[in-house]
């Protein structure tokens, strides 16, 4: 039984940073447990200052290649809020559908490419092609569908170009939507295969529980990713998104250059498990059935179960996407030309990124030039919670020894599906 560990996971691969794990314990006494992460890409906020209100969503889509639709959505909602623009029901539904494309893409990617290898004892998805070929192909089909939705509605597989203040620059045809519906229906059995795979491995997730506060959007009509007010598992009161600063309460902690957040407790969590814990009662039938397959219930507080909640949510957004397409086709796609005019003002946009609640705030002058920006990303809101998880996790699992502890701590970070240093992707090679 090991009582001493010295873990330091340091990676110097990116210009703007990455996460480090630091743990030291001697003779059963934990001396240091730190989740160290540098500041999130705040420089993007400087980048949009001086830019036109019509371009903000395009620029911020470059913050992240995995959450590019989500950043665009938060931005466009903030811009329209500032300009007093109301969008049509058709635009609203199409945007939700596009947003769901990214949820599918990101959740399947995370569960299939990062979590499954962990649970199957592999370093990456590549060896799984040989050991689990059918499952990997299933994962890729589902992932590809998410990409396809983004391509046909957003105009590109990533970094969408069709989202404009007031609507879309290009609308899908009804035929395109019918095709999408068929593809969504066809992916349902694939999602069941993925759910059963994860369910068969879920007992390999560490049995760790820590009560914390969960924060997510909530809406009376549906399990929301796009509309609503800010809710918490610690209070019945909800908060208007315009007051998001009173929820995140950003502060500087000496161990991290990234700001931490806290609301009713010393930390809170955002993401799939937070949304599930707040909105599980609104899951559609297949998603609710998937949750039952895992025995996932409201009040779950094992952070590793965020991965399970992602599987449930993937089914949820596929089901809801099919409903949205039915509603769109019933009404028929009507031609619309986005119309909006600039004015001085300030606006807030809030949506659920795959990895948690995301806030954008912008101020504009009378010409529609951005004068101020504030972007609060979900990973930033999870940092303090990861730290608190680490502090509880290490003493409890110390006896498993350095290697196992290190793997579990890396898995714990991965469970949060963090967006760390996603702004650059250059190759780094040597010739052989």
């Amino acid at each position, binding site marked *: 039984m090991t009582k001493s560990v010295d873990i330091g996971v340091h990676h110097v691969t990116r210009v703007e940073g*990455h996460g480090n794990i630091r743990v030291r314990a001697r003779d059963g006494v934990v001396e240091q447990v730190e989740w160290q992460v540098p500041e999130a890409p705040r420089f993007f906020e400087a980048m949009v200052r001086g830019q036109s209100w019509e371009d903000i969503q395009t620029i911020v889509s470059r913050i992240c290649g995995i959450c590019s639709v989500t950043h665009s959505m938060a931005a466009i909602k903030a811009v329209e809020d500032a300009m007093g623009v109301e969008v049509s029901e058709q635009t609203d539904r199409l945007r939700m559908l596009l947003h769901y494309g990214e949820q599918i893409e990101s959740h399947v990617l995370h569960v299939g490419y*990062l979590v499954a290898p962990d649970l199957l004892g592999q370093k990456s998805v590549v060896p799984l092609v040989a050991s689990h070929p059918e499952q990997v192909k299933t994962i890729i089909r589902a992932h590809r569908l998410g990409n396809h939705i983004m391509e046909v509605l957003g105009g590109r597989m990533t970094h969408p170009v069709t989202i404009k203040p007031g609507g879309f620059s290009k609308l899908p045809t009804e035929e395109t939507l019918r095709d999408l519906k068929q593809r969504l229906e066809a992916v349902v059995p694939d999602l069941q295969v993925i759910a059963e795979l994860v369910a068969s491995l879920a007992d390999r997730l560490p049995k760790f529980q820590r009560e914390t506060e969960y924060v997510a959007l909530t809406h009376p009509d549906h399990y929301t990713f796009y509309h609503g007010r800010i809710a918490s598992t610690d209070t019945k009161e909800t908060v208007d998104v315009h007051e998001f600063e009173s929820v995140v309460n950003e502060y500087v902690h000496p161990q991290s250059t990234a700001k931490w957040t806290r609301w009713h407790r010393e930390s809170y969590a955002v993401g799939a498990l937070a949304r599930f814990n707040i909105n599980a009662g609104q899951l559609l039938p297949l998603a609710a059935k998937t949750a039952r397959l895992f025995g996932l219930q409201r009040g779950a507080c094992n952070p590793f179960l965020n991965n399970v909640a992602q599987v449930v949510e993937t089914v949820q957004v596929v089901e809801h996407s099919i409903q949205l397409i039915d509603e769109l086709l019933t009404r028929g796609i009507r031609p619309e030309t986005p119309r909006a005019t600039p004015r001085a003002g300030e606006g807030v946009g809030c949506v659920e990124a795959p990895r948690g609640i995301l806030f954008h705030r912008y101020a504009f002058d009378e010409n529609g030039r951005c004068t101020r920006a504030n972007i609060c990303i979900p990973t930033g809101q999870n940092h303090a919670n990861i730290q608190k998880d680490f502090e509880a996790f290490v003493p409890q699992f110390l006896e498993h020894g350095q290697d196992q502890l290190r793997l579990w701590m890396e898995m714990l970070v991965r469970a949060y599906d963090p967006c760390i240093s996603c702004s650059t*992707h250059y190759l780094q*090679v040597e*010739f*052989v």
Partner: protein
Amino acid sequence: MRAPVCVVGLGNVLMGDEGVGVHVVRRLAEEAADWPQAEFLDLGTGGLTLLHAVAGRRKAIVVDCARMGATAGALRRFRAEEVRSTKMLLGASLHEGDVLQVLTLARRLGEAPADVVLFGIEPAEVAFSGKLSEPLAARFEEYVRRVRQELVEPLGDNHA
């Protein structure tokens, strides 16, 4: 039907030279009408989206910023098997990209094009900026020309 060739630009255009691949492909996309067999794709920092972009093609041309130990602005044409990634990934996040690993995955899945050519451009400055640095800006037309030459190559050529 998918175009048999895809020309993919990778990188973040808000991070200076990191976005050079996207800049090159955007420029070539302006002359897309001259290349009916090719599709020009700005995949930004989409990571695994590359897997879907190359699937079912006969040839993929990938243009990306690359730290190769060369002088700033240098362009090198190579194939995946000629290099070894020296990138260390934390593996904590989907947001870390390794193009070579994505191409390996495509190969294992049997989805990789017969011919995959990479153009790496050594950065001078990867930092918060919407523009290329001077050394890269000065050679930009050369990059466009080199990638354009690759489009002239007959399909099925699989030799370095």
